[in-house]
């Protein structure tokens, strides 16, 4: 599994396409709690995390449960970790749950790439 993280608009998906050969039809874009592991690339995991928080579910635990389905995937998640502690409880839980998921996935990943201004910084 390859984990791609980075801030908003940094070019994470573009990197998956240009450097890892991901095609548009291979990308599942998260908009809620649904995940389609039949696609090799899952994009926007932070939105999946947000939906999990609203539903009272821990996203990292969900990923542990489905480990065999994503172990060869490319997973893309926005880094939400570096702002002021959000005022809203939901946003705080969102940030925490997304951080826990990224830590778990980074531990499992063969490669972790952080994208900064469109450039790859290899973290693992």
């Amino acid at each position, binding site marked *: 599994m390859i984990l791609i993280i*980075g*801030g*908003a*608009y*940094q*070019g994470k998906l573009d990197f998956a396409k240009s450097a890892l050969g991901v095609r548009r039809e291979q990308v599942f874009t998260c908009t809620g709690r649904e995940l389609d592991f039949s696609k090799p690339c899952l994009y926007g995991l932070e939105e999946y995390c947000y939906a999990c928080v609203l539903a009272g579910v821990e996203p990292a635990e969900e990923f542990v449960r489905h480990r065999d389905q994503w172990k060869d995937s490319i997973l893309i998640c*926005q*880094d*939400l*970790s*570096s*702002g*002021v502690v*959000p005022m809203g409880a939901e*946003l*705080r839980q*969102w*940030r925490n749950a*997304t951080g826990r998921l990224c830590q778990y996935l980074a531990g499992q990943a063969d490669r972790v790439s952080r994208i*900064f*201004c*469109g*450039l790859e*910084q290899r973290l693992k």
Partner: protein
Amino acid sequence: MTFLISGGAKNGKSGMAQNLAVALARGGTHYYLATMIPVDEEDRERIRCHVADRAGMGFETIECGRDFQASLKDADLSATFLLDSVTALLMNVLFDPANNYALDIPAAERCADQLEAFARKAGNVVFVSDYIYSDAQRYDESTETYRRLLAEIDRRLARVCDVVAEVSAGQAVVHKGAWTI
């Protein structure tokens, strides 16, 4: 050489960029492209601090608040330029004061084109931007548009600049090129 320096607030980007621009100039002309348009006394105080910080470094200041291309019409392209910051310039351009600060996206796109073209043709430039992309917030549409457009400029500049660095606690993490002058 062309440099893009970004990173979080108050990490030393401006000071590092000023020293870099002076070194790149090797005694020649170096311009400071000032992007802040003061609206109150707090802004004027910040500008006074910035001017004091640069005193003795030999910069020629060019006011570059809104129209990037026009402000450079008399400048010597073979000189060294420090633009601090892309963030402030885009803010001035995108939110149009003549139209109740409504979003002027075409103006922002023109500004992005001009910045990239300038990075391609000028010899020595240091661009300073701000990394504002890793927080857990849901912003309103105009703020989100601003973030997206700033990131697009950052990425376009990162593509054409020789060196891209992220400054953290006054230290440069180099993402592209080699920091040698």
